[in-house]
């Protein structure tokens, strides 16, 4: 997927003026925010579970190499082949190699953010493999030729009417608008693909080191079909997804669906270990696991490491006032919302995503709801800092901040300037005591007034009082 994060401001404007999107976002917010709150109540002590989950993720990150090696050894012992990829180009090469070796003509895909991250579909199609998205949301997007706008609900920006039009056009059946009928129609069109595909591609919600298993979490059942029916299964995921034991996976499974969709558990959780055994009635004969770095290893040990705890639940975006206003497409890459505003600059390059760390009010709601306690607002602040140090901010902004710095470091000058400013603003405000315009800040004043300063600065008032006995 192409990185279009630099266009944030323009895209955000468009989103704000798109009434259909605004309605969809309101609906989503209500559902996800309430759903999460209620589902967490079913846990006896949700914060204890969150603390334990955080500790699990940190245990892994402190010795990620050792856990990955353990995972690899266990997976290999069960007949899986483990591949390592530095970047998207390597993933594409590995995957097309696998496809060629096994004579694959058609692949069915279950949802995978990493495959979006590296633009996998295009690479496979270039190698002559037909790729069919099978998650209902992703299937709709494949027909519409659009990227996902949310990591859990990829198509939340589309209305039922738009989907009905899309199906009528592509399926050549009478147009229907009923949700259940649309879902059945997609099922009927996708079932033959599951049955005829040579390869199933999935992501991994977790890799369990203890057993060498890939764990996937779905509701529709497409993940189960794609990993059971075709003779080749390829799982693609980031290197940070490993967890030590089944107990650890169980803890994370108490949080992931609750934080994501407000479910206590998703319909299907599948723990897939190795290839079809002698005597097994079904399952793939070949199982490949591709572990992708793509910039993740560089974050270990840095200030930004906590983002690697992320379990992709989407709670941070569901609760973010900026995401709630502009939706996922404005962020311009696979990962939207607060988590995306950190991941996109780190994985795709800071200079390709300069607006994102600034597209936050730093209100801290994201960090409050994150099931693995990632200090998202702190990380955004850190990225703003790095941008400043690397000279990636606009000249005027840098210049003003320099001036400000020069000013606050000189107390006498600061007092003088502040005194003047207070005096001037009070005069400008006049008898009403409110400012309703200032040169250069028309936008800010369009919807609000600024109360004028109360005559003198606080420091001046303080000095005057102290001067008295």
């Amino acid at each position, binding site marked *: 997927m192409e990185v279009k994060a630099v266009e944030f401001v323009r895209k955000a404007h468009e989103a704000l003026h798109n009434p259909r999107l605004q309605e*969809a976002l309101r609906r989503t917010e209500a559902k996800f925010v309430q759903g999460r709150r209620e589902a967490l109540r079913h846990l*006896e002590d949700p914060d204890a579970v969150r603390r334990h989950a955080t500790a699990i993720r940190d245990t892994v990150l*402190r*010795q990620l*190499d*050792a*856990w*990955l090696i*353990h995972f690899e050894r266990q997976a290999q012992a069960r007949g899986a082949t483990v591949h*390592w990829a530095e970047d998207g180009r*390597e993933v594409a090469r590995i995957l097309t190699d696998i496809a060629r070796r096994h004579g694959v003509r058609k692949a069915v895909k279950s949802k995978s953010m990493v495959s979006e991250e590296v633009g996998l579909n295009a690479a496979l199609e270039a190698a002559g493999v037909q790729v069919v998205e099978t*998650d*209902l*949301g992703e299937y709709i997007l494949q027909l519409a030729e659009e990227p996902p706008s949310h990591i859990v609900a990829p198509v*939340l920006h589309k209305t039922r009417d738009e989907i009905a039009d899309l199906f009528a056009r592509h399926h050549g059946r009478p147009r229907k608008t009923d*949700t*259940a009928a*649309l*879902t*059945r129609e997609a099922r009927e069109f*996708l079932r033959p693909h*599951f*049955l005829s595909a040579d390869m199933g591609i999935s992501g991994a919600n977790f890799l369990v*080191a203890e057993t060498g*298993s890939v764990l996937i979490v779905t*509701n*529709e*059942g497409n993940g*189960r079909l794609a*990993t059971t029916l075709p003779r080749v299964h390829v799982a693609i995921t980031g*290197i940070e997804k490993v967890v*030590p*034991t*089944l*107990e650890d996976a*169980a*803890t994370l*499974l108490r949080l992931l669906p609750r934080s994501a969709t407000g479910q*206590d*558990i998703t*319909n299907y*959780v*599948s*723990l*897939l*270990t190795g290839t*079809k*055994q002698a*005597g097994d*009635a*079904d*399952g793939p004969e070949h199982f490949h696991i591709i572990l992708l*770095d793509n910039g993740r*290893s560089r974050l*270990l*040990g840095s*200030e930004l490491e906590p983002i690697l705890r992320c379990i992709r639940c989407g709670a941070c975006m569901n609760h973010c006032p900026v995401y709630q206003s502009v939706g996922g497409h404005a962020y311009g890459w696979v990962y939207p919302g607060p988590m995306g505003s950190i991941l996109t600059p780190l994985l795709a390059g800071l200079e390709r995503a300069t607006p994102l760390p600034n597209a936050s009010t730093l209100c801290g709601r994201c960090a409050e709801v994150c099931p693995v306690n990632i200090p998202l607002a*702190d990380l955004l602040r850190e990225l703003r*800092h*790095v941008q400043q140090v690397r000279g990636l901010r606009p000249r005027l902004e840098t210049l003003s901040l320099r001036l400000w710095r020069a000013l606050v470091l000189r107390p006498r000058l600061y007092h003088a300037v502040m005194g003047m400013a207070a005096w001037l603003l009070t005069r400008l405000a006049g008898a009403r005591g409110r400012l309703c315009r200032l040169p250069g800040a028309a936008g800010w004043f369009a919807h609000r007034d600024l109360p004028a300063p109360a005559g003198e600065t606080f420091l001046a008032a303080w000095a005057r009082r102290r001067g008295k006995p």
Partner: protein
Amino acid sequence: MVRPPRSAGARRRNLPCRLGAPPGQTMSARERILGRLAAARRDDTPVAARVENPVRGPATPHCSDPASRFTERARQLASTVARVADFSAVPAEVARYLDAEGLPRRLAAWPEFAKLAWQAVGIEAVFRPAGADDPVGLTGVFAAICETGTLMVTSGEGTPATTSLLPETHIAVVPVQRLVPTLEDAFALLRREAAIWPRAVNLISGPSRTADIEQTVTLGAHGPYRVHIILVGP
């Protein structure tokens, strides 16, 4: 919190790269990635220790009446639940359910149910993995989890995964002795009983569903539209 400026790598340890390739050879992606990870490692505890002594996280407490707790949770997931006293009563309950739902009296079942008297209740049963054209799939379970009303089904010789997946209706036979409080308990049981770890461990929590269209939950996406659970036991 505001922190002083620093370079991104300043806090990293300078451990030697243990997995470097011999001189003259280019390193593989695996060696390069693991080399960077090793350089950032901050803990040298052998990982096997944690694997051998897994740590249980905080969970919901044990329940005093597993069968009713399981039934309540399973119904919340839109599964239906019936209770019979022993295995010989299963065919009659299946027949009742199929009639009530207006479904054909035809099913593909796991071989372990071949001994039951299907013909006596007029059900045509075959004992092979279910295909896409079978209307009903009948399976057992490895265990069932009270905490969430979840079925744990493992793949294997007589327990094909497709039977709980391809038909539009899934009927699961759950002996009450196989009810366990939490997911951790189910995994522990599997560790104890499985000779080799099964290729697929599937946790099934109700009929398949999607909420992709306008966040409206619709039952029956790619998996079954109906899950009927028959609890067997006194």
